């Protein structure tokens, strides 16, 4: 695709979101793990000074390597703060019709009131969450009855019509979880988590460790669920293929920082941060067997991250300023028409070139990507 086409696709995306308001806003969010063992305090800055906003009705992807803070960010956005995770600074707000809700200052009752009905969560490995000794229909009834007035007949009818709408076989209601395949269990769990029509859905690695066919079924179901009520879906996964197929916008995390955020086509076609460029380039593609190298070096330990830009030890473009100063996350000038969400990058040496043409110069000595 030409850069012009990429830009126009970006603009189209912007137009879709023009009227939309922000559903989630995080500002200066710092979520650290603070542990004390034998008098030694250890601080892991898993999410450090992160600002983002998620618009209503969009599918927002959060990408990055393992250990870059993706899941911690999701916990913070959900307001699920359990020690040793500590919110050191910043705020997270939801905005629904009823006004703004501070996600980090909710009481247990507040959280209970919005959980599943307004804010829903699909956990990692969610195919194992179904009660093995109850039939699927009983699980649905338990779930619905815990959140609203219902009778057994009403809730089973509700489950049946919802499964039908999503194109799942309603016969599964009579089965026990062990009788279903892993992919079917995963999809039943997604149906369960979204039956009360939440406005905001968080999904943590919903497809990891699933094989391709099942993965596709799960992704298509998530898309279906999102489109049905035009709800907002926040999707955390390290699988860039899933981001390419599902999301409207992608945020790339590196070592607890947001390094780049743009609409999906820009992230894949014209990323500006060297890390994002490495991430996209290292992906194997069907029909191309030429050698691809992983990202050199490894992500830093977050209890003692490097000074300046946290990517500088692995970056081929790094200079002195990168070692001393933290690059601010700034909108790229001259892109978009000012109405859509901007393309934001945190880098002193942004690369302004489409990916095919402007390959990063690889360092001569390639350390292994561990």
């Amino acid at each position, binding site marked *: 695709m030409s850069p012009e086409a990429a830009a126009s696709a970006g603009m189209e995306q912007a137009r879709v979101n023009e009227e939309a308001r922000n559903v989630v806003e995080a500002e200066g969010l710092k979520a650290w793990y603070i542990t004390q063992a034998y008098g030694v305090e250890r601080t892991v800055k898993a999410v450090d000074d992160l600002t983002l906003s998620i618009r209503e009705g969009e599918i927002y992807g959060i990408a990055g390597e393992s250990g870059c803070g993706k899941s911690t960010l999701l916990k913070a956005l959900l307001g699920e703060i359990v020690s040793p995770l500590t919110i050191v600074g910043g705020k997270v707000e939801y905005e629904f019709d009823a006004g703004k809700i501070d996600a980090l200052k909710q009481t247990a009752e507040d959280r209970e009131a919005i959980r599943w009905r307004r804010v829903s969560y699909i956990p990692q490995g969610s195919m194992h969450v179904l009660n093995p000794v109850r039939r699927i229909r009983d699980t649905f009834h338990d779930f619905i009855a815990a959140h609203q007035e219902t009778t057994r007949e009403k809730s089973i009818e509700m489950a049946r019509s919802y499964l039908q709408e999503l194109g799942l076989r309603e016969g599964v209601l009579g089965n026990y979880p062990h009788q*279903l395949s892993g992919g079917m269990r995963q999809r039943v769990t997604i149906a369960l988590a979204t039956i009360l029509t939440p406005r905001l859905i968080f999904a943590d690695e919903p497809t990891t460790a699933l094989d391709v066919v099942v993965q596709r079924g799960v992704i298509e179901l998530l898309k279906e669920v999102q489109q049905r009520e035009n709800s907002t879906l926040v999707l955390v996964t390290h*699988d860039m293929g899933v981001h390419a197929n599902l999301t409207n916008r992608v945020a790339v995390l590196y070592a607890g920082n947001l390094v780049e955020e743009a609409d999906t086509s820009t992230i894949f076609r014209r990323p500006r941060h060297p890390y994002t460029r490495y991430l996209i380039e290292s992906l194997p593609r069907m029909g191309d067997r030429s050698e691809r190298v992983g990202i050199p070096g490894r992500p830093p330990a977050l209890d003692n991250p490097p000074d300046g830009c946290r990517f500088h030890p692995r970056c081929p473009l790094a200079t002195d300023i990168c070692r001393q100063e933290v690059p601010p996350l700034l909108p790229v000038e001259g892109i978009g028409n000012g109405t859509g969400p901007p393309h934001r990058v945190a880098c002193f040496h942004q690369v302004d070139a489409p990916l095919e043409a402007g390959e990063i110069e690889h360092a001569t000595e390639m350390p292994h990507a*561990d």
Partner: protein
Amino acid sequence: MQTDREHSLLSVESLQRVFVTREGFTTTRLEAVAGASFAIRNDQPEIYTLAGESGSGKTTLARLVLGLEHATSGNMYYKGRDVLHLTNKERRDWFLKEVQPIFQDPFATFSPLKRIDSYLYETTRNYKMATTREGIDAHVDEALHAVGLSLAEIRGRYPNELSGGQAQRVSVARALLTRPSLLVADEPVSMLDASLRMSIVNLFRSLRDDYKVSVLYITHDLTTAYYAADRIAIMLRGWVVESGPVEKVLGEPLHPYTQNLKNAIPEADPEKTWEGDASLAVMDTEEYTRTGCRYAGRCPAVMDICKTTVPRDIEVQGRSVKCFLYDEEVPEAERMQAMANGGLVA
């Protein structure tokens, strides 16, 4: 088949494994591997991939190859020798040196309470690869160098001190200690994220090219399979439904199931979104007990014969396909009609 044995590193012939479960008076037979055949070549090292959905029998087949599972019927030859009927001594002194496993989760492979280098020392001593202290150190260091690590880096470290990619490299190094000709890697990358996946898959490529080690690479990740493998066998519910060079099988898949798999790959390209429908099994076991073709329940191009008769392996366009759509004994008009119904590429 008889001649293949001599020219193959590993020759698997109609291997079958049946699991029988009894509940009260009812007996259920589950044919986890149903007459699977494939061969890894001997003249040059290759990466051979076994791919398929979860529950397709890939892991059972790998365990059969490693001798961790007993075959119900069928034959298996390694360098021309029957390896299903080895004595314990032959197994230990020869076969296990030649064929070494790598498992899925490196953190489950190594005990968190043991230093990771102790596994390397133990394997070296158990297989008597070196006897003196210096000799053992040198041997271990050499294996670690092959995977891009060194003894100095990992000496005395515990598994939790290593990253997932490093721990998986150590488990490859451990497998290399006995100087094997074949590594059996069962889902070695499914626990790792994309960039680490590439580093392990690149390692297999370098082992093949620089150390002349063949790899039986078991995965459901078709993009890395396409990237690394020379040949591939697609498994469905215990059958090998399509096998051949990876450019042919994944490049222009013929079997409707392979086409379904290929269509389901999420390509890292926002322009290439999915076409058609993904067809999924509702229950894992129902397809194992189906008469006729095991894919008939999901196949878009299903014909009447598929529901009653088991298809045979057909050699067509440089690969082997287990499907009636390519069987010339079925009238051509009928096959063309079925392909058109299913919207498949002929």
